[in-house]
């Protein structure tokens, strides 16, 4: 065989990284010094009298203080939600319910820039993502579910669906506003009332949403938004007058919740962790696949439950894929989340950065080889360079456990059967990706991988009409689409 001509052109990354700064203006973001609890349509001081700081993870500066709800506050919110359910919301005609939800959608669109900037300030995600993905998708979610409110009987043939009552909703810090939308929109459309708790590191956009809900003139108590940490969440989970728990977060906490509500009649949907396989076959369009892998693991700093954190590359193209990946990683811009050129922003919290760094150590100790971008990272704030591990064994913890950071574990395979076996060899089953040019192979893979969402020749795509949720220990129930309605209805 004739020796192949080797491409010796060395890519220069400095020029890509040295774009002039293009920061989004902070002036549009009005952040109060202190935020209270949104209960029964009003902002109320917490009976705990306690507040906690919320900081900007990009520079560790304090943004605001947020009320810490205790069990008394949770009870107040549940009582408000129950009253609103029995006295108002249950009697509101579906058509009118829809109009309130449409209003919320429109107001989010109107205040999109403000919400995007606050999302980025509070959570550390690149403004490009909060502006182009989080906020518009949140608005679209309300718009989509608003339309369902007066059409529910068409979704469930031979049934007359009824609301459950009061829903307790606990959401994570990775997509704060979007997760609030995923929870609130279908619950309202189906006629339930709500007590929602955002994550303690990212409360601000949920509180902005509370302002919007107030402006939209939703009847008091229909949506209550209370802030706090784990103990506030536990008080919601254990409150006897809640009919439904919707939780998005880690598998560990999901299991605790499932156990905690075992003795009750609460319904639950759990959207938990993942360790998705992203699979590249040798016939795939490789540049496109590499771009998909980058998006799959570095979108939102890898703080994505469905992140493609395990890459499987067919052996025959492994070398070329690895080189392309390394080159692409070198060109990613890591830094100020408010800069419009930034690809990877700040890690959401110090605590999460510690978790990621722990796994970087574990990966090396277990014998995997680590490659990181050579980029500089800001001195203040929480940052992690985009990282890939090669020489990873199936049993390595970095291939088994959810890291929730910009860390990719790469393995190789030879046959379809082998990679199906490897991809399914995990307690998780949230999502997966397949890259190949062959349609029949795509459907063999998508039907044999045990996961709730599968992207073929694309990755990390979301839409209000598209159901999302996991198999196995990635949780149960679906959010989004027609199937997302079932989680909030008695059939």
């Amino acid at each position: 065989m004739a020796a192949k001509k080797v491409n010796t052109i060395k890519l220069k990354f400095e020029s890509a990284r040295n774009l002039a700064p293009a920061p989004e203006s902070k002036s549009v973001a009005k952040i109060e010094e202190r935020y209270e609890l949104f209960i029964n349509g009003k902002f109320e001081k917490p009976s705990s009298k306690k507040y906690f700081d919320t900081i900007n993870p990009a520079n560790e500066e304090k943004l605001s203080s947020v009320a810490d709800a205790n069990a008394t506050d949770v009870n107040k919110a549940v009582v408000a939600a129950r009253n609103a359910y029995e006295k108002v919301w249950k009697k509101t005609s579906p058509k009118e319910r829809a109009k309130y939800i449409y209003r919320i959608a429109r107001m989010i669109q109107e205040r999109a820039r403000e919400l995007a900037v606050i999302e980025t300030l509070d959570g550390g995600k690149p403004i490009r993502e909060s502006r182009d993905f989080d906020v518009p998708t949140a608005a679209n979610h309300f718009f989509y579910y608003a339309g369902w409110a007066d059409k529910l009987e068409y979704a469930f043939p031979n049934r007359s669906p009824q609301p459950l009552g009061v829903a307790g909703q606990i959401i994570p810090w990775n997509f704060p506003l979007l997760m609030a939308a995923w929870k609130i929109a279908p619950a309202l459309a189906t006629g339930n009332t709500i007590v929602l708790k955002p994550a303690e590191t990212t409360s601000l956009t949920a509180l902005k949403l509370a302002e919007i809900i107030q402006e939209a003139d939703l009847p008091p108590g229909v949506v209550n938004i209370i802030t706090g940490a784990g103990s506030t969440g536990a008080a919601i989970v254990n409150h006897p007058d809640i009919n439904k728990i919707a939780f998005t977060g880690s598998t560990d906490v999901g299991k605790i919740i499932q156990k905690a509500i075992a003795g009750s009649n609460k319904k639950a949907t759990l959207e938990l962790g993942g360790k998705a396989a992203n699979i590249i076959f040798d016939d795939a369009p490789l540049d496109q696949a590499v771009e998909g892998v980058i998006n799959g693991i570095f979108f939102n700093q890898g703080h994505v439950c469905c992140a493609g954190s395990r890459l499987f590359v067919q052996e025959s193209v492994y070398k070329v894929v690895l080189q392309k990946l390394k080159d692409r990683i070198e060109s990613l811009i890591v830094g100020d989340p408010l800069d419009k050129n930034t690809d990877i922003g700040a890690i959401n919290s110090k605590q999460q950065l510690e978790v990621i760094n722990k796994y970087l150590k574990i990966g090396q100790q277990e014998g995997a080889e680590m490659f990181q971008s050579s980029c500089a990272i800001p001195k203040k704030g929480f940052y992690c360079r985009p990282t890939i591990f090669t020489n990873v064994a199936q049993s390595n913890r970095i291939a088994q456990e959810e890291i929730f950071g910009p860390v990719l574990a790469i393995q190789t395979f030879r046959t379809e059967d082998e990679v199906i076996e490897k991809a399914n060899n995990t307690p998780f089953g949230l999502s997966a990706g397949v890259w190949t040019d062959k349609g029949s192979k795509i459907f063999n893979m998508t039907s044999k991988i045990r996961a709730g969402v599968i992207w073929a020749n694309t990755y990390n795509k979301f839409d209000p009409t598209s159901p999302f949720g996991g198999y196995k220990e990635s949780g149960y129930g679906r959010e989004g689409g027609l199937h997302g309605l079932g989680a909030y209805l008695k059939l």
Partner: protein
Amino acid sequence: MATKNRIEVLKTYKIYIGGQFPRTESGRTYIATNAKGEMIANVCLSSRKDFRDAVGSARGAFGGWSGRSAFNRGQILYRIAEMLEGRKAQFIEELMKQGSSKGNAEAEVNLSIDRLIYYSGWCDKYQQIFSAVNPVASSHFNFSVLEPMGVVAAIAPQGTSLIGLVSIMTPIIAGGNTCVMLASESKPLCAVTFAEVLNSSDLPGGVVNILTGKVSELLPFFADHMDVNATCYCENDAASVKIIKEKAALNVKRVIYYENKKWNTKETQSPYFINDFQEVKTTWHPIENIGGGKAGY
């Protein structure tokens, strides 16, 4: 020719695992009695090990069964009904032994046969009721289909010998799951005989595994086995429900709990019973908009 002094051949009631009829590995039995408390048979008192073996068989059978065409599953369910129809007399006799009147026994067997036919027909139709093509805003083809949960561990309704078992088992396997069923503790005979029906119905071994034994002993294992995807329970017993739900959390098992269902009515058959044991899988694929070049510079 039957004569009065012919000695009847009594049946040994065994359990059904992986298409075989072993005795319980524990060597234990319990006595099934009729309404008057008289012994009618020795029945296997299945152990935790039997349950584990049954789960192993169910897991082994899952890939093949879920991979069958929906049409083929429908044919096999229909075949089960045919076999049951042929052995009607035996079931009626067993139901009467366990306390049913002749009329009720006949009705129960007839309904069981009809229910099998009912779900046979659903095998290649429920997908069309519950699936969706989702009109996403981006240039992708996006659809959601149903897939079976996997291995289901189900404790059959305890009040009936046959119709409860059939009402739970049939929608589970119609949807491509495999299962381990625990028979009615007090009326176990029909479950074992029904296993013989299954075994002569082209149903692959391991798709349905049937154990007899004590609910209180086996219930925790039905909920905490790490290779079981879903647990089904049908009694109004709050303490047991709590145990099941708590243990299910170990691997985020789905718990399908049917409260106050009357299994001999029409309300307890519908495609929603199939749907209860299904996952929703959503697939995305890009659409290339060839010739859509409307962009102006």
